[in-house]
């Protein structure tokens, strides 16, 4: 490998590296610096609707105005705190539900015949290729008062009145679990599929019952997959906007919705930026953890 790399002309190698690097720095990292900057400025009615941070008072005096008001506002108004805590709670419960539903599916896929496995894998990945928005929309038709579930239950005479399901927290959980389930199943499956089944045979030979074998061998060995799946569900779910606004109660507090409203309805860009920065600070650690986990995974793959 080294020999191969040694022949790379330094300039060619640098060029190949720099193209994606520069793109991501410019369009992904620098924007966050700008968000941080604008979260410290004051709103004004103009375009763009915020005051500049730096300002030449005279030829030699550069005034820097740091407005901490936006962050103070987030702390004082308990709407924001409530929205943060509620988003974290909803994302946490949804992640747990995804794990409870996704694990048996991934496990069953990994223990199927190799030929069936590929078809099942295709069936799990297919939802990635179908519109997320339309799949969430489908649940409106299923959950609403004269929707699929209520109509079915009423035609069988099981209920007289439709059960209110749309615009409840229940609908939001269904929507999140449904949309993010493949993100849980895929890393779990990748992990469980690699598992050395002779370990379980050995345990069985030594008198271990199947459920003990699962708890003592399969489950601990699959923990990296569990962690990756949970992070892939939890991180985006915290900032989810589409699902709570289509399926949830209009008054439901989710931080993604709050940010959206501040930006589009109140046109308060600085407060929207402060909301984004506060959310980002909370998510940086899980994102870094996920990156490390993925690198460990690919390094392991490379060694094989």
């Amino acid at each position, binding site marked *: *490998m080294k020999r*191969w*790399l040694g*022949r790379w002309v330094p300039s060619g*190698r640098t060029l190949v*590296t720099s*193209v*994606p*690097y520069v*793109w991501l720095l410019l*369009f*992904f*990292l*620098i*924007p*966050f610096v*700008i*968000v941080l900057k*604008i979260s410290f400025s004051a709103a004004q009615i103009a375009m763009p609707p915020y005051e500049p941070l730096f300002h030449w008072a005279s030829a030699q005096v550069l005034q820097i105005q740091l407005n901490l008001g936006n962050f103070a506002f987030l702390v004082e108004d308990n709407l924001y705190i409530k929205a943060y805590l509620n988003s974290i709670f909803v994302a946490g419960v949804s992640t747990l539900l995804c794990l409870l539903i996704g694990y048996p599916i991934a*496990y*069953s896929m990994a*223990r*199927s015949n190799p030929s069936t496995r590929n078809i*099942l894998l*295709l*069936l799990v990945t*297919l939802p*990635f*290729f*179908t*519109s997320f*928005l*339309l799949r969430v*929309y489908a649940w*409106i*038709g*299923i959950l609403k008062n*004269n*929707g699929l579930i209520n109509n079915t239950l009423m035609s069988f005479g099981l209920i007289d009145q439709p059960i209110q399901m749309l615009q409840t927290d229940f609908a939001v959980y269904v929507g999140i679990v*449904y949309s993010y389930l493949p993100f849980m199943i895929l890393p779990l499956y990748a992990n469980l599929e690699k598992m050395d089944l002779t370990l379980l045979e050995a345990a*069985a030979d030594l008198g271990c019952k*199947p459920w003990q074998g699962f708890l003592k061998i399969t489950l601990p060995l699959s923990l990296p997959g569990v962690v990756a799946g949970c*992070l*892939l569900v939890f*991180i985006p779910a*915290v*900032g989810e*906007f*589409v699902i709570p*606004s289509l399926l949830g109660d209009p008054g439901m507090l989710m931080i*993604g919705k709050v940010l959206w409203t501040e*930006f589009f309805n109140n046109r308060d860009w600085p407060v*929207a*930026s402060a909301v984004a920065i506060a959310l980002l600070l909370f*998510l940086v650690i899980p*994102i870094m953890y*996920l990156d490390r986990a*993925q690198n460990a995974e*690919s390094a392991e*793959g490379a060694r094989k």
Partner: protein
Amino acid sequence: MMQGRPWFRMTSLFLGFAFLYIPVASLIIYSFNKSKLVTVWGGFSTRWYGELLHNGQILSAAWLSLKVATISATLAVVLGTLGGMVLARFGPFRGRTLLSGLTTAPLVMPEVITGLSLLLLFVTMEQLIGWPAGRGMTTIVISHITLTMAYVTVIVQSRLAQMDDSLEEAAMDLGARPAKVFFLITLPIIFPALMSGWLLAFTLSLDDLVITSFVAGPGSSTLPMVIFSKVRLGVSPDINALATILVTIVAIGVTIAGFTMTRQQKIKERDAQMALAANQQMIDSLKKD
């Protein structure tokens, strides 16, 4: 050994896939409903498909979305392939950790944050250098590339990690320059991965609502934006018809791509193995001499 109880496996797979597919199936079935009350069956009809064809707003939004998705998926594959190469083949270098972090983060970053930050970047750039002037297709394309190239990078990186690099080394030993090795050996082998990366980038771009809403200008509504504003008011039968068309196209595309890819993959792997075997024979015969 097939351990575990078959009934458990069958039940969990059946329930799991029912949960994943019943909502999509219900969308399709109700798209053929005559009644305007989407979920109350009023007989079979294809009238909503006809109405869709006369809805100018949806058609022009769909056209814009298709253009954006084609351009951004293509550029995302180019950038993502470079990124995947760098991460999988260039070994450790200064700044690698940051690059890998910048590839992982867009995958999970809540879209409201990415959308807001990109918009603020475009506004700032316009103030500083006057480009991009206003917001519209250009800003949407740039944002979609940034989002989808991360997915392509991950796909290419994991494909390269699985790939046996002895063919590349052999070509190098025979004196091929790195660029030639890449285009003649690496690229053909990872081509199926690039195809699925392109498809994924295309559908993600076609589907994105949140980031697009932030960076789109007043005159540039994409298909998801039009759908969202309609759907917010409740279910509407022509959206079911639209969903059915999109799902059908995607299902056909993915199935065809899946089959051709597995077939090509098998052929390529066989070729690669034969090449290696021939190489080994040659080395052995040289040794004998």
